[in-house]
């Protein structure tokens, strides 16, 4: 599971970085979204990967990540998702405004000779 998750994060992150460096605004926003997916998965993985573990230490158990799953990364990732979603939505509005001003979807507003 660790290898799979690492691959997913790597592919998402790599695709995100590539898209962010593209000249079209829509590609940039897609890249940012993919990057934030990668980052959120990364935060989530910090709390150890386990199935069927409650996020709380039951009485009599040792406080060990073998027996429970850390709830803090889950809380962190929730906050990160909300904030990332809000700022990306705001960025979309700015993209639309830029499209309206320049008439093109180039990040610098340049019309290229395609």
């Amino acid at each position, binding site marked *: 599971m660790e290898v799979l998750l690492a691959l997913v994060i790597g592919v998402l992150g790599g695709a995100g970085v590539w898209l*962010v460096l593209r000249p079209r*605004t829509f590609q*940039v926003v897609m890249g*940012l979204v993919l*990057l*934030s997916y*990668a*980052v*959120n998965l*990364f*935060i989530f993985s*910090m*709390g*150890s990967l386990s199935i069927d573990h409650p996020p709380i230490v039951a009485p009599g158990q*040792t*406080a*060990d*990540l073998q027996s429970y799953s*850390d709830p*803090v*990364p889950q809380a*962190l990732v929730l*906050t*990160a998702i909300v*904030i*990332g979603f*809000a*700022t*990306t939505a*705001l*960025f979309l509005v*700015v*993209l639309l*405004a*830029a499209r309206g*001003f*320049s008439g093109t979807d180039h*990040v*610098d*507003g340049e019309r290229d000779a395609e």
Partner: protein
Amino acid sequence: MNALAPLVVVPVVLPLVAAAVLLLIRDSRRRLGSLINIAATLGGLMVAVAILWQVNVAAGPDAIAVHLTSNWAAPFGIALVADRLSALMLVLVGVVSTGAALYAAAGWARAGSYFHPLFQIQLMGINGAFLTGDFFNLFVFFEVMLAASYGLQLHGSGWPRVRSGMHYIAVNLLASSLFLVGLAILYGVMGTLSMADVATKVALVPPGDRGLLHAGAAILAMAVLIKAAVWPLNSWLVPAYTAASTPVAALFVLMTKVGVYSILRLWMLLFPATMASSAQFGGDFLMVAGLATLAFGAIGVLASIRLDRIAAFSIIVTSGTLLASFATGSIAASAAALFYLVSSTFAVSALFLMVEPVQRTRSERHAQRPVYDNIPHEDDNLDDQQLPLVGRAFPVSIAALGLAYMACSLLVAGLPPLSGFLSKAAILTAIVGDDPAAAVPTSAGVLMALLLCASLFTTISLVRAGIRHFWSAGGRFAPRLKLVESGAVLVLISACLLLTVFAEPVLRYTTATATYLHAPRPYVQAVFDAPARPGPTTPDYAPYERAPYNSATDDGMQADTP
């Protein structure tokens, strides 16, 4: 310090409440909105001064006020911590935001909707970033600050603002991703994000995890350095700040200081010089980055013709100077740099506020009357026939503007007699040191040379702009200045004058700040000793037992660390 603790939450809550109230005020009642905005900002300034006063008066461990939000004891909940550094930064925010709010009341607030709520939310984000004692909460306050800044940067709209704003937002969203990655790694290594708890546990990280710790800290630092406008990650700054409306640009000067503050806090808590392993990790990188930023900013200042570009590059010069001075690792240099931070922030904000009034001398729309009724002809020999220039008084507005411009130039360039000079001289003195026989390290020598070069370049550039705006003949008008606008610039310049007069107490304060920053034990102690109030249902409240601070043994690692 119990009396002070509730006060610590006010700089965050007051702007939030003010923003909520301002949202309810209709656009037609802008005067009321401006009044509430100014009143809330002034209130924030007064609270900041009160915190600074109490932190300064109280001695020893009492000088740190801790407020436990939601009443969770130290490593579990989020603590708001006001120490000397935070208190100083809060006052800085208070003064600059008062200037910006006054200036905005003169008319810029009418350029679009929701200026005042965004302004207050931005203040909340900045204050919160300075106060928080938790790394993840720092991220949240960064985002609050940035979200408001996106709106403020676009205030007034127009293609230049939208274009530079788009780049600004994209860069900052990327930086936020880096911030989160860095936080996640730190949490993975240490199992905590509370700054005080991190400071105690960083010494206990086993050698095998040191690499991860360094990587996490470096990624986090990179995200923060983007905000602090470090070369080569600062190409977003100049277009965004010059395109932003005047009061917004003046307020944005604070945002790079949040970056500088965060890097200072992070570095001092994670890698203090007293630590056995990885002490002052990344210091060399900080030094090189600071020097490169300083050089880039200085060249940019020299290459700029427009006043707003000069001001924007001055911000980069300030960031570079601060980072390089902190990276020297000397207490005296850090103290001088903190003094420089305050002085230069006021000065650059004032310069930003003056950009628009100075440009009004070129347009007829705002004209009161022409400065010269009949401009001397090109062929007139002014040495022999001085008649066209004699006996005509300057209009008051242009005289006041010129004097303020002169004061700003002296402050930004660091020429005597104002506080800009004092702070730069203090940095240079600290670098050279008391012992004339001791060798100055190469990096410090480069820093000295660059500092002096930056001053020279700034002087040249500002004098050139001043000659163009105030001395060159032809087509100039005395600008019409509103009282609040002049008041805004006056607030910032008189703050610098106060800094000049009271330089010694301020320097003493920053020296105490730097001394204690270099030994973070009191900070950690204060946060952990802050008592949570026992609830009605928990009479047998037991405090959290923690590993002893800075013990070099590995057996103190918490079991919950993955």
